[in-house]
């Protein structure tokens, strides 16, 4: 229907799940909004390899660190043009001024643009940028120095975050002079594959291909985001040919989607982990044999079937399989109640013991049903003589009490922010995080590996250290890894040239539709 009465232009319709609340990625943490802003319209200095997780050149062609690791020098790409739109005509190409403007707006409270649009720069704050970034310095038009407060190589991955997309200093100045500075955040001007055309509130967003895009012009002419919050209606629109692409299907519809020859279903593990953590400060969980025994006692296959129902994959390591340094040689623990009983006997608790198991009070992407998972685990553990009492609290209270260490066994999970294993290991399993982490695990051998890896810049070297750390993790079992969610996306059969992103980015820069 869409194509019948449309013009001759190749229009790609993405049925998105929600409305963006802003058109400046710096002002949001919502994936839906980042997909409507950062991904089509903007670029970051360093970007994520298309379809992968590695950091590759974006608006910065290359970068290097000073010997003390406190200065990061970025060499900017030349010949990148800003979008020419109905409301802005650029007089110059992208340069260092834009980079300085973008980061100073977020960093400096006295920057004239800092308070515009009531911005709070949540992502910038969440990943700890204010403490890490001392200042930004323009060396020349195509060289910028980021001065850091500590040696930290994960800043490379952080710069790939969509929220750190580069905005135009020239456009910002023009809007400020015109007395409408907030337009910068409402009518975006970027360097990305698609230029913004219009937004009809809660209905649709229109973009047009950027013929001068530095990675090559898109193959489609127009990109439309049709805002359709209900997942069964999105599926109906796919069936009726009104959309070319949708995400977040209702899991119950997946069978029908796979059976429909007009549709293609693509699946990949999400960038998350659902796990059961042992409070390693408390006996008997301070004994690695007890932790291993419990790992052997839980029937993961049964959990996958009952709780995830096809929307998850069993987790072996603590990081998702798509992330670089994922150690494929690590094997998952087997389900073996007999062995578990033997190990418990070795640990001196042959007669079993009592413990509390905290289950998630809310649905999370990495765990759709905490209560059911808790009940399954309870039954499994009873078989090896561990009497588990199921406990839960309101979500905020739950997290507060976990940080205080009141639990024995606790279900939790994590969704990564950027493509660096440190975002998982450092945030959850390091000695620095231990006083408040769910496992309260501080293991020197493991900690030195991940700390070392977070400070050096050589990727091959870092990968080796993380691979080693994963072997130790599995052996020590501070947490029992349950699952990564399995993300499904649906495209019409005529769509080609799409790659899934583990970060949930829906990037249509290279897609094409067969006529």
């Amino acid at each position, binding site marked *: *229907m*869409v*194509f019948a*009465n*449309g*013009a001759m232009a190749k*229009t790609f*319709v993405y049925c998105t799940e*929600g*409305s963006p*609340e*802003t058109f400046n990625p710096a002002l949001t943490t919502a994936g839906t909004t980042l997909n409507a802003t950062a991904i089509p319209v903007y670029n970051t200095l360093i970007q994520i390899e298309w379809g992968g997780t590695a950091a590759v050149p974006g608006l910065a062609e290359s970068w290097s660190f000073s010997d003390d690791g406190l200065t990061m020098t970025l060499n900017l790409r030349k010949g990148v043009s800003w979008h020419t739109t109905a409301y802005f005509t650029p007089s110059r190409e992208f340069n260092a001024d834009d980079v300085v403007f973008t980061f100073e707006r977020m960093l400096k409270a006295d920057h004239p643009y800092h308070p515009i*649009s*009531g911005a*709070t720069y949540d992502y910038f*704050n*969440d990943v*700890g940028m204010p403490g890490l970034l001392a200042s930004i310095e323009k060396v020349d038009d195509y060289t910028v120095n980021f001065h850091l407060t500590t040696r930290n190589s994960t800043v490379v991955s952080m710069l790939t975050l969509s929220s750190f997309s580069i905005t135009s200093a020239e456009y910002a100045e023009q809007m400020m002079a015109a007395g409408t500075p907030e337009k910068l955040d409402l009518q975006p001007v970027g360097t990305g594959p698609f230029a913004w*055309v*219009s937004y*009809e*509130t*809660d*209905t*649709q967003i*229109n973009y047009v291909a950027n013929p001068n895009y530095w990675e090559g012009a898109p193959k489609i002419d127009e990109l*439309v985001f*049709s*805002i*359709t*919050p*209900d997942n*069964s*209606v999105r599926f*109906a*629109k796919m*069936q*009726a040919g*009104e959309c070319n692409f949708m995400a977040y299907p209702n899991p119950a519809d997946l069978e029908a989607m796979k059976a429909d020859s007009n549709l293609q279903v693509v699946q990949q593990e999400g960038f998350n982990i659902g796990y059961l953590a042992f409070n390693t400060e408390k006996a008997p969980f301070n004994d690695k044999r007890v932790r291993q025994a419990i790992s052997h006692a839980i029937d993961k296959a049964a959990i996958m079937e009952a709780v995830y129902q096809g929307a998850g994959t069993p987790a072996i390591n603590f990081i998702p399989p798509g992330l670089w340094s994922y150690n494929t040689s690590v094997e998952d623990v087997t389900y073996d109640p007999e062995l578990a009983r033997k190990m418990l006997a070795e640990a001196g608790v042959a007669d079993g013991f009592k413990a509390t198991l905290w289950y998630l009070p809310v649905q999370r992407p990495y765990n759709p049903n905490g209560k059911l998972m808790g009940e399954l685990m309870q039954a499994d553990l009873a078989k090896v003589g561990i009497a588990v009492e199921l406990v839960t609290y309101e979500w905020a209270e739950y*997290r507060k009490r*976990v*940080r205080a260490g009141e639990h024995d066994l606790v279900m*939790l*999970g*994590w*969704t*990564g*922010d950027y493509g660096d294993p440190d975002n998982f290991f450092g*945030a*959850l399993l390091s000695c620095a995080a231990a006083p*408040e*982490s*769910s496992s309260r695990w501080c293991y020197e051998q493991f900690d030195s590996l991940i700390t070392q890896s977070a400070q050096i810049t050589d990727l091959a070297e870092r990968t080796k250290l993380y691979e080693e750390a994963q072997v130790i993790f599995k052996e020590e079992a501070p947490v029992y890894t349950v699952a990564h969610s399995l993300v499904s996306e649906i495209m019409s059969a005529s769509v080609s040239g799409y790659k899934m992103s583990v970060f949930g980015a829906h990037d249509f820069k290279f897609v094409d539709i067969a006529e």
Partner: protein
Amino acid sequence: MLGERRIDPAYHAAMLERLGLNRPLWEQYGLYLGQIARADFGKSIVTNVPVIEEFFARFPATIELSLSAMLFAVVLGIPIGIFAALRRGRIGDHMTIGAAMIGQSMPIFWWGQLLIMLVSINLGWTPVSGRISAAFSVPSETGFLLIDTLLSGKKGAFGSALSHLILPTIVLGTIPLAIIARMTRSAVIEVLSEDYIRTAKAKGLRPLRIVGVHALRNALIPVVTIVGLQTGTLLAGAVLTETIFSWPGIGKWIVGSLDKRDYPVIQGGVLVIATVVMCVNLLVDLIYGWINPRIRRAR
């Protein structure tokens, strides 16, 4: 991701200060009431846009859908009601009233999905959802898309907007349609037993004139009241209908805000909607006096 990680205390404190959440509850409530008195419903936490501005940006879409649903309900409901009244006690009456009972208790969510599956997917007659085909980009002049598409002069745009309106109109109009049909039926039956109708019959007037002129005029008075009172039903139904059909009105806006826990929008939005319903009810009372001479003269 804010999950296991602790929020930076300084940032947390600044956020409480900004949102005024560090003040005592009674003070927060007093401030809120003071703002409401000045018609200031606060700003959305998510978009940072004043609630009232967000409301009026979306209200035309809801009015367009509600008016169209009401038109559908009135244009079909009144003739159906008259038909049933004239066939009182016969099979046609029973069938109509049975259907109206089903219609009045129809779960909107189920009805909408059913129509989409049947009419849009299986038959391919109407679009699934939205307000206009993605191929058209029509500048918003009035907020009413049917008018805007005509003003834009784009070929096919009006037809596209109209075809998108059909299913939501039917879904939203079903309950009012059933209520109006039942109300018209009982009002007409009541009026038909009046003395002046017997007189009219005795004078030998044609049945069409008796029903069309003498009966209907009097029977419509309670029906008009019911139509006015359906505003509340329509706005409540809009919440579901707009969600199913991705209709960018205030219903979808409120539901979206619930998902995002955007409290100022939910509180302010509900207050504004309640005010609108009250205003319409007042208006109905005034119209009632205007069409019913007995009330007018009683003043």
